[in-house]
């Protein structure tokens, strides 16, 4: 195949990737978009297999089959509540693959036409080492994020003295190593860069708490794109550069949206040390305040007599796997002629759009699921807000209390509805450690218990 033909096929593949992302502007077009993405990938792989230098079809075929089988197995088995972990794990693989491709290019530069062993072109060496550096950070950062999301590692932020200074120092060491690598072209220095970058990846994610994970997952998404870009430059491959840039931009925008949803700068999240699960001492200060407690029958009665209900799900719903029971409750209410809708806060859950997927899994039609901007002005006209597994995103202190750590964060105005039902396991505070004054209001009823069990009990009372 001529190099022009290759370039054109790669271009088609890149265009298909762009259409794949474009398709996601609407659920209806999204499925077609995913197919475009698959076709694009098939074209890219087969075009590369047509290269004259590519001869070992059996080995490559076997490698694709092994990887494909593992990937398919995991993707088909994974629970939707565990999506954030899965995505983090996948990011780590992209990072690691980038490191291996860079290493392969370094050991056999002839195969990539970037020079000979010992005399690789300087530009290629720089690009290669940057790709390696980003890839290795993505790898270790994602592994740690996976551990935190999965719960194998504590979600608490780990902070220690001079943390940022140490990170900055390590970064400078890496730059020094890259310069040294470009001059000496030594394998030892190459692997030192890999190891030090892996260390930096761990250190960067360590201080970030569990609830800040949506930002971290998005950021690592972005890194994996930049890593692909770095390799694209090394190989002078436009397809890799374009795709890497698309992914990098996507991750960066998602990080921006997530940080804005928490009213914090990306820098602030990255520096970390915020999202710790503080103990519940804060609630003790309010022991004198009165909390109105209710049970499932009360909740059923209140909602049955309303004509509009907005359900506000949060991470707690995902943890309790309550989405199916919740949808069942919503269905019964709808049959009664009650207007039922769902309100999603941008940072609800542990990754962008997590709640939407869980509700979709439970067969909630997507027209009933609305974003903060779309639904927030409807709360004053709503009779009942049903908050399940969410807390901080409804806390009015974000608007009134300047001393609050969550001040300025956009919130769902559930307090403006006539009554609020709060499903919660206990009086514990949210991840920010801030007490929610809504709990003590006259029009709030607390429903203590497991989110799933509570929904099932409400369903029973409603059908009785």
């Amino acid at each position: 195949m001529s190099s022009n033909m290759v370039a054109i096929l790669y271009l088609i593949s890149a265009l298909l990737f762009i259409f794949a992302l474009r398709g996601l502007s609407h659920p209806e077009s999204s499925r077609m978009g995913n197919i475009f993405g698959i076709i694009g990938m098939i074209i890219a792989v087969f075009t590369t297999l047509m290269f004259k230098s590519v001869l070992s079809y059996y080995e490559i075929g076997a490698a694709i089959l092994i990887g494909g089988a593992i990937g398919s197995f995991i993707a088909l088995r994974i629970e939707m509540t565990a999506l954030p972990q899965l995505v983090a794990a996948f990011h780590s693989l992209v990072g690691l693959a980038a490191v291996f491709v860079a290493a392969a290019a370094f050991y056999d530069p002839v195969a990539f036409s970037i020079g000979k062993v010992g005399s690789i072109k300087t530009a290629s060496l720089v690009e290669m080492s940057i790709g390696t550096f980003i890839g290795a950070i993505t790898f270790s950062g994602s592994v740690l994020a996976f551990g935190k999301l999965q719960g194998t590692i504590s979600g608490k932020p780990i902070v220690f003295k001079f943390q940022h200074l140490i990170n900055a120092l390590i970064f400078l060491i890496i730059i020094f190593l890259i310069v040294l690598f470009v001059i000496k072209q030594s394998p030892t220095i190459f692997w030192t860069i890999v190891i030090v970058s892996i260390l930096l990846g761990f250190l960067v994610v360590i201080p970030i708490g569990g609830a800040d994970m949506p930002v971290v997952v998005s950021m690592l998404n972005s890194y994996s794109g930049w890593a692909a870009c770095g390799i694209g430059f090394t190989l002078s491959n436009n397809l890799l550069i374009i795709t890497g840039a698309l992914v990098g931009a996507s991750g960066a925008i998602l990080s921006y949206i997530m940080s804005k949803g928490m009213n914090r700068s990306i820098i602030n999240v990255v520096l970390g040390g915020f999202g710790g699960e503080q103990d519940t001492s804060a609630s003790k200060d309010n022991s004198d305040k009165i909390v109105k407690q209710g049970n499932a029958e009360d909740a059923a009665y209140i909602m049955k007599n309303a004509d509009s209900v907005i359900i506000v799900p949060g991470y707690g719903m995902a943890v309790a796997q309550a989405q199916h029971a919740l949808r069942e409750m919503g269905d019964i209410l709808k049959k009664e002629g009650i207007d039922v809708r769902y309100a999603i806060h941008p940072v609800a859950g542990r990754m962008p759009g997590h709640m939407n997927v869980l509700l979709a899994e439970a067969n909630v039609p997507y027209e009933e699921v609305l974003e903060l901007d779309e639904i927030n002005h409807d709360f004053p006209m709503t009779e009942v807000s049903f908050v399940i597994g969410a807390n901080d995103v409804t806390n009015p202190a974000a608007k009134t209390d300047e001393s609050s750590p969550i001040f300025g964060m956009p919130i769902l105005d559930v307090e403006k509805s006539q009554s609020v039902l709060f499903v919660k396991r206990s009086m514990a505070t949210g991840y920010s450690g801030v007490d929610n004054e809504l709990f003590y209001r006259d029009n709030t009823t607390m429903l203590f218990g497991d989110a799933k069990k509570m929904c099932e009990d409400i369903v029973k009372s409603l059908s009785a």
Partner: protein
Amino acid sequence: MEAHSSEVFVIGLTVFFLACIIGYYVVWSVTPALHSPLMGVTNAISSVIIVGAILAAGPQGFDTSKIFGLIGVVLASVNIFGGFLVTYRMLSMFKKKTKKTKEKE
């Protein structure tokens, strides 16, 4: 593929910045409800890095570079299959109102 020169680098840089701008506009047009599938798809397509891995694994015989290439192919394949499949699963769940959930008056 042509040899590496400053010209090639500048072309790469041009492509890079234009792609960033396209990415910026395309991603802002993605509806927030589909942000999780977006991560799934980007995850899958970033594994187009498999192209580099295949080139490394291509030559006959066995050397260090080839082994690295094959490992790269395996890793990227996990992501490609896994990423597209999990996205497919997510997207097939996003449904419109059906007969079961009656249209409310």
